[in-house]
């Protein structure tokens, strides 16, 4: 190939690349417009090694930014939240995973394990547009001592799910779980921290600061509840399937996403409700672990995820999810927008608070290993 031919080929390639970029940007421009500022300044590219729940990569809503920036997402999906720390610690300080999400209850543990890096808020300008509640340093879950380690993304509440065909009146109290009529029709999720947190909330006990007497009280509540059930479902998905198949009528703790899971199994009558006692909330946040080796692309990815339109699209993609960007609320469809009163989020979180997990080590309070061991015992009883 002569030099001139080479130059000509190169220029044609460049022209095609340019045209492709224009076409791509026309298609995804509404979502990209809010997140290009960071991309223009930084060296975005390469691969982001993603370590979180399946679905949290929200391919429909977060995928266009990856494509437009030439970034490849390599997901590793976890089976339990504990896979996150286990996999990062297994690297022994090496590089590998670039982005994780963590449930607020794990903040204390992750601080102890030193697996989180402080985030540079200048590289995530969309933080400024977040809802005040999520911008705050609520209980130190995302910002502690002035250091931000996480950006809230996916959140919701846990209460009850039930089959509205078998139970036409929505249950308004957790007391209904213990009625004779529902004996054998209750299904319980195998989520040790989750069940202790929700039972604790119902009994007005904070699991993060639980004394022995309080622990015994919650354990007795759970023993009674498991006896009402036909056994514990190994996952939230399986719990939804048990209700969808008619093997159970009501599920505890119930998660709004289970409505979608049950619909996927052919039962569109399954509904979510937060009874009068309230429930507990979860908030999974983006974080950059110590194993990150592509910070620019990771910051760009997070910044894009909390831009208003992308954030709204991701909430809808999650099925009945909440948004964290203030500007995202107006883009939500009616059903998703009606889920939470965004003008009074503080009231919502008072009814369904975000709790920390039981401590890993403590001489005053019940530790997480005791909680897990007791839950295994209750399950096997």
């Amino acid at each position, binding site marked *: 190939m002569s030099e001139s031919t080479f130059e000509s080929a190169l220029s044609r390639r460049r022209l095609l690349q340019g045209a492709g970029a224009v076409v791509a940007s026309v298609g995804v421009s509404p979502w990209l417009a809010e997140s290009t500022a960071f991309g223009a300044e930084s060296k975005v590219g390469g691969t982001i090694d993603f370590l979180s729940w399946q679905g949290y990569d929200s391919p429909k809503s977060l995928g266009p930014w990856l494509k437009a920036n030439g970034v490849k997402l390599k997901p590793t999906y976890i089976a*339990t939240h*504990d*896979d996150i*720390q*286990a996999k990062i*610690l297994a690297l022994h300080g090496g590089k590998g995973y670039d982005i994780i999400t963590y449930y607020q209850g794990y903040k204390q543990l992750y601080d*102890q*394990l030193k697996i989180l890096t402080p985030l540079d808020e200048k590289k995530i300008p969309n933080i400024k547009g977040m809802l005040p509640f999520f911008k705050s340093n609520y209980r130190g879950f995302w910002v502690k001592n002035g250091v931000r380690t996480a950006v809230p993304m996916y959140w919701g509440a846990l209460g009850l799910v039930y089959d509205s065909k078998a139970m036409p009146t929505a249950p308004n109290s957790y007391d209904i779980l213990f009625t004779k009529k529902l004996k*054998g029709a209750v299904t319980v999720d*195998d989520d*040790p921290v989750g069940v202790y947190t929700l039972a604790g909330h119902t009994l007005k006990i904070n699991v993060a600061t639980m004394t022995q007497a309080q622990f015994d009280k919650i354990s007795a509540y759970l023993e009674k509840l*498991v006896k009402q*059930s*036909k*056994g*514990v479902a*190994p996952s939230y998905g*399986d719990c939804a*399937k048990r209700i969808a*198949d*008619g*093997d159970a009528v009501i599920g505890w703790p119930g998660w709004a996403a289970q409505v979608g899971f049950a619909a996927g199994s052919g039962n569109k009558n399954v509904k979510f409700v937060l009874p009068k006692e309230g429930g507990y909330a979860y908030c999974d946040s983006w974080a950059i672990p110590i194993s990150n080796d592509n910070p620019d692309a990771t910051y760009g990815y997070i910044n894009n995820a909390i831009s208003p339109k992308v954030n709204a699209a991701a909430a809808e993609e999650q099925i009945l999810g909440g948004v964290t960007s203030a500007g995202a609320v107006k883009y939500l469809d009616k059903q998703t927008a009606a889920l939470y009163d965004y003008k009074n989020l503080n009231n919502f979180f008072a009814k369904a608070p975000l709790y920390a997990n039981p401590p*890993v*080590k403590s001489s005053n309070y019940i530790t*997480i*290993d005791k909680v*897990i*061991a007791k839950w*295994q*015992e209750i*399950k*096997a*009883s």
Partner: protein
Amino acid sequence: MSAAENEATQAARARGLQLGPVLLTLPATAAMLVFFVAPIAIFVVYSFLTAQLYDVSRPFTLDAYSAALNSDLNRTLARNSIEIGLLSAIFSVALALPVAYWLRYATGRWRMVVLFLITASMFASYLVRIYAWRTMLGEHGVVNSALESLGIIDQPLGFLIFNRFAVTVALVHIFLPYAVLVLFAGFQPIRPGLLEAAQDLGAGAYVRWRRVILPLVAAPALSAFLFVFVLSASDYVTPQFVGGSSGVMLGVQVQANFTTVGNYPLGAATSLLMLAAFVTLYFAIRFGLRLAKLDRVRFS
């Protein structure tokens, strides 16, 4: 060729003959060392170390073994594991024996087709097979619906699902093809002529089974039994999906120790104790075979 040269040539040939098998088994040996022996060795070391949060440190201690052995919960879960493993192994071998016999002596040229049909379920995903049993045994499942439509029952039978019965049924279904394969291989060297000779000598069907076939397939049958027992007793997925409260097994606790609690020594000690129990059972069965003089039965 001198005698010395001849000896040297023979020695070289012998060396060559010995080297061949060694080279052939090298990949398998390396794989076993890397994927089985090395992890077990790491587990052994971890089980004697002091637990830190998601980490281990010195000094060496027996604390993890003490905690694993003195835990009431571990004892309950171990009992669940052993009971479920035994039930699954007994039913699998009991069902596989006649199937393998029929496959060996009665299927003729259709043998491979039948063998394929028996093993076909192994191609389906493990979870799909478990969920298939949920669909069969559930409150509104195939069995209850059929019984209701036939007018045999008014209300669905609740005892079909979320108990040990369901776990045993699902595990037997999952492991039955393996048991059939092991027993089919065990029947292969038993020529039909042996059975014909027994018949000619006046042995009826029962005597032929008891005096000829059973002694010859005792060892393969116990291999199949052990195979199904170990896989069933260490399974912790099936019991969670169809087992209810009675189906929780020790494997779940091992996993929790490694991931949720971050106590590596306790997880390692518990799993090594499980391994020790399985090895003990293996030697107990071998000893039983020897006592019954079934370990030296030969086909020729």
